[in-house]
């Protein structure tokens, strides 16, 4: 039995509906945090964006692994697009995180939090991916070098994710512990809705960007064929 992928417009409509639901859940259903007050609402956009960035980097690494195992050319573009999306969401994580830090701690950034510094390292590592990729001539060599680099980067994801727990980071809050999420049921429902909306939005953006890049490549080949 073959599994057909849902069409892009359907997914986009679902992402918009989920985003609307998440706004309602965040501002009208989830209670205000007793400690942080209204600024805690940033949690519902900041954490899903960060998790989506990790997922995009993971997707990029998975496609890179497929490229190295199968030599399938299409995986190079898929890996590149995944990492591109991850870097965009990584930048958004840093920006929304800074805003939340200013609201909660009174500073835009602190070097004493391992979670923050490791996320910045992860982000800069993937920024360097583009410098590496575009410094090598297009072809199988570039595909392999980019794939190996993408795979190295994915090792930083669990380090970044677990740093807060391993290093007893007292500055950055730990919401998800071994005992489960440290929030009320409605807060968790709002978080899950936001997470689903942002992940789906990222997937729609990934497929749209990939379709654009593939069309670009096909057009280039067509132009070369017609020029002969």
């Amino acid at each position: 039995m073959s599994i057909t992928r849902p069409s892009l417009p359907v997914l986009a409509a679902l992402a918009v509906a989920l985003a609307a639901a998440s706004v309602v859940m965040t501002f009208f259903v989830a209670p205000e945090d007793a400690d942080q007050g209204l600024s805690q609402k940033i949690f519902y956009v900041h954490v899903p964006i960060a998790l989506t960035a990790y997922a995009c980097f993971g997707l990029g690494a998975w496609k890179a692994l497929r490229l190295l195992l199968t030599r399938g050319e299409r995986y190079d573009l898929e890996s590149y697009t995944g990492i591109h999306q991850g870097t965009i969401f990584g930048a958004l994580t840093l920006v929304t995180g800074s805003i939340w830090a200013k609201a909660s701690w009174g500073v835009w950034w602190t070097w004493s939090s391992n979670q923050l510094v490791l996320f910045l390292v992860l982000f800069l590592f993937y920024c360097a991916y583009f410098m590496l990729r575009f410094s090598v001539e297009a072809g199988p060599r570039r595909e392999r070098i980019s794939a190996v680099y993408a795979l190295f980067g994915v090792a930083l994801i669990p380090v970044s994710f677990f740093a807060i727990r391993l290093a007893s980071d007292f500055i950055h809050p730990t919401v998800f512990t071994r005992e489960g999420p440290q929030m009320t049921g409605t807060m968790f429902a709002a978080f899950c809705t936001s997470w689903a909306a942002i992940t789906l939005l990222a997937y729609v953006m990934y497929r749209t960007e990939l379709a654009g890049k593939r069309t670009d490549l096909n057009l280039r080949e067509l132009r070369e064929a017609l020029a002969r």
Partner: protein
Amino acid sequence: MSSGEKYVAAAYGVFLVFVLVWAAIIATKLSRLERETGELARLARARATGERADG
């Protein structure tokens, strides 16, 4: 507007602006692809007409 409200509005605003900028970039790219596809289609038609005239 309280300071908490300002920060929440800024965080959500950044995300909204990002989505809008992304949509604008994709729209620009789509119009470029449309133009290039049109040029290639014209080129292919001209070539087909030329080949028929030669043949």
